[in-house]
């Protein structure tokens, strides 16, 4: 099956590709759109350009990094903690001369994004956490199994998707130790202490059909973080941006533009003037 990334963006632009150097890593990125930068840090499945990237690239300069150890990059045995990993990604942003930027982290990358925002709050305009893996239940298990089993865990309705990316077993074997090392433990007391004082406007999104991390985990972020908003995306699984891209990008765009004021509706209901 073809990856979603192979479909061209709806605005006709093809994402540009590039590489930056940070902490001895050569880090690939894909980029599309113009305007305020929106940096994306991917999940444990690696960088996949989704329909949500395309939609957000209509309003933002979307830069999706492939974090060290993922994709075709060499195995990453160097990074020991998520805090280190986040520092590396801050330096990757430095290499692109991104002074201030919006930050979007998905699942595994949600924890990276939280650490990055904790370490460099002055750099992050707003934080979007898509199905973040920073707080997980005790019985959490990283999705594994056949492509069909993986699809059932990752998506609420895999049967509705035109194509589902299939993980390369060799890449998966290479990244698994890194993911396990950086994700553990299910509750990170040091990070949660930092989250409690974080002023960054934060939007946490969970799909109501998330079979990887229960959407009920969202309430912990809301309870911990002083400037956090929780949104449940109906009928979406773990990979919200791929499954309900319009719903995802609409609320993300609104939040990034207006922060707390996104609670004030701009929906017009006038039918006939």
């Amino acid at each position, binding site marked *: 099956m073809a990856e979603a990334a192979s479909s061209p963006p709806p605005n006709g632009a093809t994402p540009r590709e590039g590489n930056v150097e940070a902490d001895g890593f050569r880090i690939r990125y894909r980029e599309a759109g113009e305007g305020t930068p929106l940096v994306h840090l991917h999940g444990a499945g690696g960088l996949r350009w989704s329909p949500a990237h395309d939609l957000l690239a209509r309003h933002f300069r979307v830069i999706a990094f492939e974090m060290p150890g993922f994709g075709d990059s060499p195995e990453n045995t160097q990074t020991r903690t998520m805090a280190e990993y986040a520092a590396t990604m801050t330096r990757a942003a430095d290499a692109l001369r991104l002074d201030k930027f919006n930050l979007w982290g998905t699942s595994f990358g949600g924890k990276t994004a939280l650490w990055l925002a904790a370490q460099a709050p002055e750099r992050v305009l707003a934080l979007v956490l898509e199905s973040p893996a920073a707080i997980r239940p005790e019985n959490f298990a990283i999705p594994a199994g056949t492509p069909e089993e993986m699809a059932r865990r990752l998506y609420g309705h895999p049967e509705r998707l035109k194509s589902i990316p299939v993980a390369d077993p060799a890449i998966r074997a290479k990244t698994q130790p890194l993911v396990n090392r950086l994700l553990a433990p299910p509750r990170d007391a040091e990070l949660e202490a930092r989250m409690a004082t974080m002023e960054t406007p934060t939007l946490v999104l969970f799909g109501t059909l998330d079979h990887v991390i229960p959407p009920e985990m*969202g309430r912990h972020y809301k309870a911990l973080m002083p400037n956090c908003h*929780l*949104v449940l*995306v*109906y009928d979406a699984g773990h990979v919200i941006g791929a499954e309900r891209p319009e719903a*995802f990008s609409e*609320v993300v765009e609104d939040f990034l533009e207006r922060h707390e004021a996104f*609670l004030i509706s701009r929906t017009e209901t006038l039918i006939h003037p």
Partner: protein
Amino acid sequence: MKVSFFETGRYPVPADIPREWPVPSGAYDPAVGAKAYQGMVERARFVQKLGFDWISLSEHHYSPRILTPSPPLSAAHLASHVEGIKIALLGPIVPVSNPIRVAEELAMLDTMLPGRFVFGLLRGTTNEYLSYDLNPKEARERTDEGMELILKAWSEPQPFGWQGRYFQYRTVSIWPRPQEQSQRPTYALGVSAEAADFAARHRLGLGVSYGNVELMAKSTGYYRQRCTEYGWEPGPDDIIWRANMILGETDEAADAALERRSAQSQAPFPIGARLRSALIEQDKRNVGGEKRPANVGGILPISFCGGPDRVIKQIKEAREKIGVGVLDLSLADPGGGDTDAMMSKIELFGKTVLPRIREI
């Protein structure tokens, strides 16, 4: 077996009133309406005295056939006048409602009188889509999403936004909240596979309505199968069957009444024929996954008919085949007939049938 009386706010209909739905509201008489609502209270007291477990309510619009467009208001009215008997809201029509408003109003009731109310959520009958301009093609999905949102609003302790397909809220955090689900009987209503799936997934009861034993058994059989797949087993109280009964002093009397009723081809206040056909064409229905045409304005089937002994036998069969533990009964068609005659049937049921079906 528990027994519920289906209360419809019986409005005595004058002979000269227009018969097509929607019925002109200019024909409404406020004094008669007030009396109808007082009648609700009197019947609730009466059935409670006879030993009925619940009194149930529904949502219908724009006709005198069933005079209860707002289940929460009907329920509050009854609860404020009658003590003891449980009041079942079967129930708010979710796809035409603001789900958050439904969640709040039901939570208010549950807080005012904990344990008095039973809640059912449903898609509604096809003709009701005309009441609030609902596109029939969206009804199923709006129902599923609305029910999901209501349950989430009841259970989520933190403020949350909802990014749905048909509903969008940037922030939700209802006060008051209802009791825990175990203390608050809640049902998804409908014979469809979708209603059964939803109920099974959320560990809710299922309320089915009308149709014969075989059809209802198909629906509840599917529900029980899905419950097993979700790792739980529903009990008798988890299945409600709303059904019509013709009860006579003898089998012969009941059969004669059934014959008289069978001469009718339509329910009171039907929708015009062409509109009816257009609606049926646009609405998709199923029983436990098997396609069925929508019933729009047709008479509803009689599921029980006979003298006390025969009816008890039929109830036993329903218990065995459908798994039903709560019978929600109509003993006369709403929108017509003689209320006094209906009261005597209720009394007959209460005295000759009800005490003998407790152990079923």
